[in-house]
């Protein structure tokens, strides 16, 4: 039970008891004035009063307790609803965290990927430099050769006749003899 509720009940009962005590005193005073104090009639009156007072006190106490119980029940229900609200809010908050971490991670991953790409490109440059140089060289050579083209010509020449052969041989022999003279 809430201490505040207990205090309310205590104060209410104290006030009730104070009023009851005052009423008792009034009854005694009246009995004294009537000369009936301590008599049978007075005792019956006091007894009736006490019974009624006890009943009223119990009714007051139970009413206050009932009120407290209902308030507590209501507050508990509100607690339950609020807790349910909190519980339904938590997944959304967690999702936001996940998205935040995912975004930060994506940025960092992209940064690392960019570094790796740069390293790979540097390695590619160093690996294929000879081939690229050769390719460039070949292109220049091809250009040069285009400016100085070689040629191949083919033609069919008729075979010499026997007379041409004989004349050719004769002139060659004559030339040799001429030279020997």
């Amino acid at each position, binding site marked *: *039970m*809430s*201490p505040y509720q207990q205090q309310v009940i205590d104060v209410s009962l104290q006030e009730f008891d104070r009023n009851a005590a005052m009423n008792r005193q009034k009854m005694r005073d009246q009995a004294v004035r009537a000369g009936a104090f301590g008599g049978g009639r007075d005792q019956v009156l006091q007894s009736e009063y006490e019974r009624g007072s006890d009943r009223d006190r119990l009714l007051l106490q139970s009413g206050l307790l009932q009120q407290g*119980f209902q308030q*507590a*029940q209501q*507050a*508990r229900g509100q*607690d339950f609803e*609020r*807790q349910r609200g*909190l519980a339904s*809010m*938590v997944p959304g*908050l967690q999702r936001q*965290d996940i998205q*935040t*971490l995912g*975004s*930060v991670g994506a*940025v*960092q991953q992209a*940064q690392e990927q*960019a*570094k790796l*790409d*740069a390293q790979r*490109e*540097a*390695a*590619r*440059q*160093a*690996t294929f*430099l*000879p*081939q690229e140089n*050769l390719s460039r*060289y*070949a292109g220049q*050579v091809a250009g*040069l*050769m285009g400016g*100085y*083209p*070689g*040629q*191949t*010509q*083919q*033609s*069919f*020449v*008729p*075979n010499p006749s026997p007379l041409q052969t004989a004349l050719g041989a004769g002139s060659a022999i004559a030339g040799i003899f001429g030279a020997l003279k």
Partner: protein
Amino acid sequence: MALQETRTRPAQFIEDIGVDLAKNLVASTGVPTVSVGLSAISQRPGESAADFAARQTAARAFETRQQSLAGLAPRVAPQDQLQKDAAALAASGVGAYKPYVAGAEQLMGAGAGTGAGSISE
């Protein structure tokens, strides 16, 4: 009829260049492709000593070329301090709601004094 073929050759220096190019092309086909430094390669099972030596030579040449080309190597700018700070802040905020949720739970439960035990008292 006889076939007569006449070839007109290009200038000697052009021929020399062509021969040199051809030799280089043929030689290049025999060089293994290695894209890592010397420390990153090791002799593979079944690899002959000659083949491994050729790869080692290629790796050395790779290192030399990489060193020579360092000025041309692509680079990536690092994250600046603002970006780092932003990432750190974002990460530090993760789960920041937990204490508040726990606090709210406490306030709703024991704070109100309306737990199940309290009602039965």
